[in-house]
């Protein structure tokens, strides 16, 4: 049997709206992945440390507060500093198109906006990690 894909689902910033993060975490687990959920109010440092310790291939960030432009680039920067650029960062939440494009240019693998299907997210991770 193949080793399951390991995913860290993280809630950075002050936003406590964790409905999406929890639904995604369950869906990924139901799809056979190993999911570690950080809980709320994680700093970029805490998230990257957890990703390092848990040896994950994917970090899923859920941000609904509009703070993504301050938080996500910092996560990417820390991953580079730790030589972990092979870890795929995906972002879900209320992220306007132009911000999504800019964040992808900086290294985010995918941005899932409201209404994205769970299946699309699962498929994306499977493709991104096996390549």
């Amino acid at each position: 049997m193949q080793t399951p894909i390991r995913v860290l689902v993280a809630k950075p910033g002050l936003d406590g709206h964790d409905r999406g993060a929890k639904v995604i975490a369950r869906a990924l687990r139901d799809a056979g992945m190993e999911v570690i959920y950080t809980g709320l109010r994680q700093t970029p440092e805490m998230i990257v440390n957890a990703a390092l310790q848990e040896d994950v291939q994917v970090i899923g960030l859920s941000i609904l507060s509009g703070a993504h432009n301050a938080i996500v680039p910092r996560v990417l920067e820390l991953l580079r500093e730790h030589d972990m650029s092979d870890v795929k960062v995906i972002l879900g939440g209320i992220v306007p198109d132009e911000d999504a494009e800019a964040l992808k240019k900086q290294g985010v693998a995918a941005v899932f906006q409201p209404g994205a299907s769970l299946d699309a997210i699962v498929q994306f991770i499977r493709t991104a990690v096996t390549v």
Partner: protein
Amino acid sequence: MKTAERQFTTISGVPIEPLYGPEALSGVDLAAPGDFPYTRGIHRDMYRGKLWTMRQFSGFATPEETNRRYHYLLAQGQTGLSVAFDLPTLMGYDADHAMAQGEVGKCGAAISSLEDMEILFRGIPLGDVTVSMTINSPAAVLWAMYLAVAEQQGVDWARLSGTLQNDILKEYIAQKEYIFPPRPSMRLVTDTIEFGAQHVPRFNPISISGYHIREAGSTAVQELAFTLRDGLEYADWAIERGMAIDEFAPRLSFFFNAHSDFFEEIAKYRAARKIWATVMRDRYGAKSERSLKLRFHAQTAGCSLTWQQPYNNVVRTALQAMAAVLGGAQSLHTNSLDEAYALPSEHAVTIALRTQQVLAYESGVTATPDPLGGSYFLEKLTLETEAAANRYIRQIDEMGGMIAAIEAGFPQTEIADASYRYQREVESGERTVVGVNRFQSDDQPIELLQIDEGSARHQEQKLAALRARRDHNRVMKTLDALKRAAEGTENTMPYLVDAVRAYATLGEICDSLRVVFGTYQETTRL
């Protein structure tokens, strides 16, 4: 799909029979509106006497910009104000705190000190307008600032009218904006209830909220049951403090979601009034009619709004608002069409307000109270909703109350299960979301409100100037006095008012309380 195979349920999964007839009315209490148990409404004349308050929840960027929006909304015919605070404020951090980075002014107005509160209400006479404030963990502090502004305006506290959300239990359950552990938080809430009864008698010190529980993915019954059970917890604490039920119960107010399933929502509001009236009378021995009457604010369901085809959201909101009105709401917020993207633009919020005005002045639904009363389906659904909510309430009673249930993760898990079930139904196509999983088409671009980092810099500069200007010794003295009060059993409100008058900042005050009370981290459950 053939009709015979298809399951009809409400959006919360409650089965619906093929037909309802006169037998559905057995056991239904059809007491008139204004009569116990108020299922049909708390007033005999309802909207014939007074329309609901049109109260748009609003706040963004700096207090200066939000103040301009308030003047605009009042000029457009809005009848009350409702303050949205940003996340740093909700979490008790000043705008210049490291944790506030990227968050200042994004989800609401940034308020770090009395100076910001003065700006927020500049030119708005607090004696004449009712103000609701969506603030929870640091509610006592923001209320102290509000009282201090009223004092500066020369308005007697006894004339102030409005609502403090101040419902910390639903934060642990659903929205997760908590600072302190449950018990010290409940003590602060009880302090505000007691202080309000003594000094600010026309102000609702709490708005017991199901809205956020529903937004987190609960069913209608869970929203109702957890909210009412939270209400009982606050009542128990106030009684423990030594207050009589009729001293404070008339000022307990409620806040429910207005979700998409039209009849289920109306049934929920009707069941809410009946359960509350019954429990206040029978469990607490309330005598005052005002203690028995459940008054509520409603907000249409943010979580039902779609990013795809955003103009459809105007229609969703109109239907949800109609359900709230037919359910007898006392005040209402209608969401703007762009809220799946951002805080509302002025254009979008105007349409949302106009939606309420069309309902109020054109639809005719205001002409008679509870016009759907006696409907076979609605009455049956009201009874079923009531019974299902009472089962949850008993279950939580048996667990030892809401704090014990929260510590056991009970409501949190029930909600997460319901939200996952719903998402799976949408995913499989069992539930249709127009424009998302059926009837897709290209989206029309809409103009959005942008909040840049300029707000954060503006707030940081004001704070630096304030810290340099104020009387440092007086700040330290009031904070020390507050800490001593928090360590003891005295009501903290007078100390909070003193501290904000000295221009101690929100962050400094909350840090003082953090030292005494500690902070809360939830056990993460999936």
